[in-house]
């Protein structure tokens, strides 16, 4: 696993919550494609990381699911619950603060 993927895995739940805040409901494959498109292919979510994250968020009560038959097969859509909406705001804000701090540390000028 390269460092990019490690960073991505750590913030995967926040990415999912953010995407579902923007779009009312999404299915697994759609999420992987959306991330790829938004980052111009720089970031790719592996299936092995995405689905456990989705299932965990569902079990925590932050996501709810609805299955529909599309093109003759079942498709499971995920959307945010009421708790999921408030948790999304809080987690996005936490990640934002962490990134700001990280940015500060990375641009630190060496002491003369």
């Amino acid at each position, binding site marked *: 696993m390269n460092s990019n993927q490690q960073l991505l895995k750590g913030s995967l739940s926040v990415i999912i919550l953010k995407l579902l805040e923007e779009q009312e409901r999404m*299915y*697994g*494959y759609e999420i992987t494609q959306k991330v790829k498109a938004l980052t111009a292919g720089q970031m790719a979510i*592996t*299936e*092995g990381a995405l*689905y*456990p994250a989705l*299932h*965990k968020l*569902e*079990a*925590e*009560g932050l996501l*709810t*699911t*609805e*299955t*529909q*038959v*599309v*093109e*003759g*097969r*079942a*498709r*499971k859509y995920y959307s945010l619950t009421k708790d999921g909406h408030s948790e999304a705001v809080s987690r996005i804000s936490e990640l934002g603060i962490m990134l700001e701090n990280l940015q500060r540390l990375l641009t630190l000028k060496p002491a003369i």
Partner: protein
Amino acid sequence: MALTPDQLTAIDRHLRKENWLLNEDLIAELTDHYANGIADQLATGVPFELAMSDIHKGFGGRKGLLKMEEDYQATQAKGNMRLLRTILVSYFSMPRLGITILFSLVIYGLNVMFPLLLKSDYTGFALATIAFISYCFAFRRLLYWNKTGFGRNDLANLVLQGFNALFLSFFYLRLFLPDKILLNLHPALTTLLGIVFFLYEASTLELLMQHKSNRLKRVKS
């Protein structure tokens, strides 16, 4: 590019036979993922087998898929317990608190007025019918759980089922107690037993109905 029925069958065989997956819900979700991924790759000229192998790698191969299934069942069981707790608690807050109070009053009243109500022929027949129907549902529920892996091997679920079975045994044992002992039992005890039984059954039923309705909502697409 839409996949052919043969290609969809190949995906199903890949997941069930070659990768040993059993959970129906997970298989359905992964089939859709494979189908979407393969369709996109076919559109760019990649052969079917190569596209399927590429997606399989993304899941971490067979080992990754089996681990995912194990984790899925564990998280599902946790989620179900959380939901069951939420439903049970809802019977102690408005507006459902009204149902709990009304039900308690009815059972208490019946027990005070007719202490031997449970032993009458009519009540016995009605209870036997309800018990028969509920055990039919329970049997179907067990079959469904076994098929989908819903809470399978989950200790908490087993404990709850065991508790419910034990509780039912105590509840129905009352029917066989001598009148003398039955008349000496405080109505509050019977009311408590009745209300716990009612709340547990109503909550479990609601949980199963929610699970079922989430599983498949057919739409015209």
